[in-house]
């Protein structure tokens, strides 16, 4: 029945469809060959501005559906759209690249968490929360990975540098914005009470 329907499509509509097919094909090729996530504004260039954002998003949606059954998925991250392997494929991909990327130490991860959740922060802020000195090596590790950057200096003596996370950090963790970071555990209410009490005094 549905077959019959598609066969009796008016010619103009069929042309429209085949046209859209081409456009999705172009979109797909651009996304598959891009080294970086592509924002919608960039994708528009593919069609010389003949597509508006809404049309592009519809096409991205359609494209995403087409890849539903594949080992690759189309995702939106902080700096745009990209194709990436589905997590469940990693067990296979690992066989080709046995050397695993290094896991970060607790010190690095805690520093990263503080910068991510409390940004912008100085090294002093991080040290106060962690209760230990933060080595330059830790910050360097995160900077080299492209996950943190200096975004300014706090206007206090010494003008310490302020660190924040980058869009690369969000991209690499599959996030679109900082709002999508795992939510923090609420601090125990009573402390807040106590601290509030203290402030009153």
């Amino acid at each position, binding site marked *: 029945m549905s077959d019959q329907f598609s066969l009796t499509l008016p010619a103009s509509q069929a042309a429209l469809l085949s046209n859209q097919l081409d456009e999705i094909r172009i979109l797909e090729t651009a*996304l*598959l*060959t891009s*080294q970086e996530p592509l924002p919608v504004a960039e994708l528009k260039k593919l069609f010389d501005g003949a597509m508006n954002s809404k049309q592009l998003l519809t096409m991205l949606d359609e494209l995403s559906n087409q890849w539903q059954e594949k080992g*690759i998925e189309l995702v939106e991250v902080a700096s745009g759209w*990209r*194709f*990436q*392997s*589905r*997590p469940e*494929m*990693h067990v296979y*991909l690992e066989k080709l690249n046995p050397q*695993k*990327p290094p*896991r*970060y130490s*607790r*010190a690095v*991860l*805690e520093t*990263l*968490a*503080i910068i*991510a*959740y409390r940004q912008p922060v100085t090294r002093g802020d991080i040290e*106060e*929360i*962690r*209760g*230990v*000195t933060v080595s330059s090596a830790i910050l360097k590790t995160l900077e080299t990975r492209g996950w943190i950057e200096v975004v300014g200096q706090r206007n206090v003596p010494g003008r310490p540098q302020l660190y924040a996370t980058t869009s690369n950090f969000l*991209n*690499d*963790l*599959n*996030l679109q914005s900082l709002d999508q*970071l*795992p939510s*923090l*555990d609420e*601090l*125990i209410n*009573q*402390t807040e009470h*106590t*601290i509030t*009490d*203290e402030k009153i*005094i």
Partner: protein
Amino acid sequence: MDELNSLVEAHPIAKICGQPLHEVPHDLYIPPEALEIFLDTFEGPLDLLLYLIRKHNLDILDIPMAELTQQYMAYVEAMRADQLELAAEYLLMTALLIEIKSRMLLPKPIHTPEEEADPRVELVRRLLEYEQMKKAALRLDELPQLERDFMQVQVLINQRVIQQLVQVNLDDLQQAWLTLLQRAKLNTRHHVQFEAISVRSCMSEILRKLKQAGTVSFYDLFSPSAAIGEVIANFLAILELAKELLIEVEQAESFGTIYVRSI
């Protein structure tokens, strides 16, 4: 709580006589060889305090300072006795704990305005904030990570088609030559001679022919259909090539065939 303990206990703290030591012993006895590793397990005094509080089921909002201080100091003392290089932060924390403890022991002044702040408040705030960040770190690490848990697609853009050939136009070439001439003129050591292009181009052409054919008859170097100008240019080219010792012109006998070959 379990989550935190398991974090510490997932990796044995040390191995003693080949047996993995998963827990810090309750009686605070730490085998000397395990001490350093034990210290490494913690990210600092806050981490150690948090561990002690959670491990002994102490109420973080009502910390029994005496017990906690005693335990903490026992560790620090053990470390010091073993002359481990102890991070200053650990000693600083000892001082802080003792200070809090002693402030709690002091009788409250009679004219306390309403309520004096609990000396433990600041410590508790720090402990809770640190614990919060510690958990946040674990959760961040659980997020799928590029290259660790998934890969970016990277299809090659066919370079063969993309490669753009360098374009050179006549102006570029003219400009380059002009520059050279200027330099040559300014530098009297160079004496650049100019000859008609057609002679030069004939020279290349003759060399090309000789390279392919080896020895060629003099007459074969001239195209029958060539215009008179071309014939002259070609003849000049042969003379020039001979002068520059690029070719040899041979004639076995008078009025015999003249052969030209490259040297």
